[in-house]
């Protein structure tokens, strides 16, 4: 079985988000980049399902040379080889078009992504790849098992879950529950240096949108502190002042 795992390079979760250039650009100064936490889950499951000669895992990343440490980390965790599409990841549509373009004639049974990247949170990639390739896509799965020539998945829905079956090939975006992220061991880190990393140029894709500017949520007013015995007063304030109950 051939599995393709799409990974992105995102600011570490502890990053304090600031913007520069009159709030038109994310300020990358001093920001540590990591492998997107949800992509780690997708990668971990791909490795589990292909271990012991049952298949191969290829990493694909759309990004510039600066994100190669993230690709090497994915290889250290256990992917077999990697492809980098050499272009800034303009938006989800652009990235999905690149990945679909690469994957269309490679015979992957499964293409996995994280549920969203923790910077732009679009949750768009898996569905867009599916649409570009005209194959099924299942968003935000919590479980993924292989069952002969099809896969059994559990998808999250509001207040519940949906069990489904899908035939190969398909795309799915993975959330918590699919697998526990794997920590690379020393042998993995050493071998990652020599695993194949192919660099390909991006194809041209029409531009549908533009990120214009950013802002930080307005700070709240000062906190009203109450005593342990003032829960009645709290309930009253929530009703009369905040009007939320």
């Amino acid at each position: 079985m051939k599995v393709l795992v799409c990974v992105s390079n995102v600011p570490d979760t502890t990053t304090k988000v600031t913007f520069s250039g009159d709030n038109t650009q994310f300020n990358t100064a001093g920001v540590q980049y990591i492998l997107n936490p949800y992509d780690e889950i997708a990668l971990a499951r791909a490795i589990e399902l292909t271990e012991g000669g049952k298949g191969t895992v290829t990493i694909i990343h759309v990004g510039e040379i600066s994100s190669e440490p993230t690709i090497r980390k994915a290889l250290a965790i256990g992917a077999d080889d990697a492809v980098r599409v050499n272009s800034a990841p303009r938006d989800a549509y652009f990235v999905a078009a690149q990945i679909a373009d690469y994957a269309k004639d490679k015979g992957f049974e499964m293409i996995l992504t994280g549920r969203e990247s923790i910077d732009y949170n679009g949750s768009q990639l898996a569905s867009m790849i599916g649409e570009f390739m005209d194959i099924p896509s299942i968003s935000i799965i919590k479980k993924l098992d292989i069952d002969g020539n099809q896969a059994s998945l559990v998808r999250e829905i509001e207040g519940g879950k949906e069990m489904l079956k899908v035939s190969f090939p398909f795309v799915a975006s993975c959330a918590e529950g699919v697998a526990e992220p794997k920590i690379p061991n020393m042998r993995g880190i050493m071998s990652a240096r020599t695993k194949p990393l192919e660099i390909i140029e991006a194809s041209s894709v029409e531009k549908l949108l533009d990120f214009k500017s950013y802002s930080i949520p307005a700070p709240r007013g000062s906190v009203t502190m109450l005593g342990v015995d003032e829960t009645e007063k709290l309930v009253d304030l929530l009703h009369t002042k905040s009007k939320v109950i």
Partner: protein
Amino acid sequence: MSVLVYVENAEGKFKKSIFEVVSYAAAIAEQLKTELIAISIGNVNQADLSSLGKYGATKVLNVSNDKLKSFVNQAYASIIAEAAQKEGSTLVVFSNTFSAKGLAPRVAVKLKAGLADSAVELPEMDNDKFLIKKTAFSGKAFAIVELVSPIKVITLNPNSYQLKESGSTGKVEDFTPEFKESDFRTMITEIVRASDKIALPDAELVVSAGRGMKGPENWGMIEELASVLGAATACSKPVSDAGWRPHEEHVGQTGIAVSPNLYIAIGISGAIQHLAGVSSSKTIVVINKDPEAPFFKVADYGIVGDAFEVIPKLIEAIKAYKSNS
């Protein structure tokens, strides 16, 4: 020209977030001086369909077919795109639900439309520009996105637009789509819904607890507080990682982002990753025994105290309030 809004049903019924997105799409249609058309797929009764007119849908396309009883995103996307083309829609709007995440991007690709997900406000449409505000960096920031394509797609975050009753009843029309067999390669085998609980993504009130609760055996009082309030329960990452609570309750940067009217955080210190997921809550109450907990800095109301002492009192106070109102 028209605006098309997809009205998702859960077991044949519309939730509040659907009335919100119809109200939202109606406001945009009014600004564009055009008609708002709703499209429903699945089995929803006529009265519920025409009631969408109350929120501004002048026409409701009803796609009802046994094959489409359960959600197959590929097939649903084809139908919505087909309707958009037939109705000359220049904008397609969705509520940003779990299903919409599997649907809206497929529709956007079919229509070569720019997609703004997680919108929190009406678009700005001056001088032929179309600018829309969305959440970014997992709630740590907002981004303004300009959609430059002729056809546009928006997904609206639940609980970010007020219901607005404007119209009367919508005219319900049957819509018969063209089927493509290859759109049905996924099959739902079972759906499980926790019917006794309020779903976290839709919740207007949320009671959330962290490691300060010391162990899963102490969640009884959290559930009781949620139940007397009519709130959903949530938790912090360490709690779901430890297996005290299920993953779908994990709120924060690597869990889900929520925007309820009220978020009560109990025994959660307020790490930056957790705060990211709750920053768009309207009112935040923090209960923590550590007066230095960072969560107090972003709270509207705070109580420094032991959760095991404060929660029973809070439950009593809410019960008293409920019995008087």
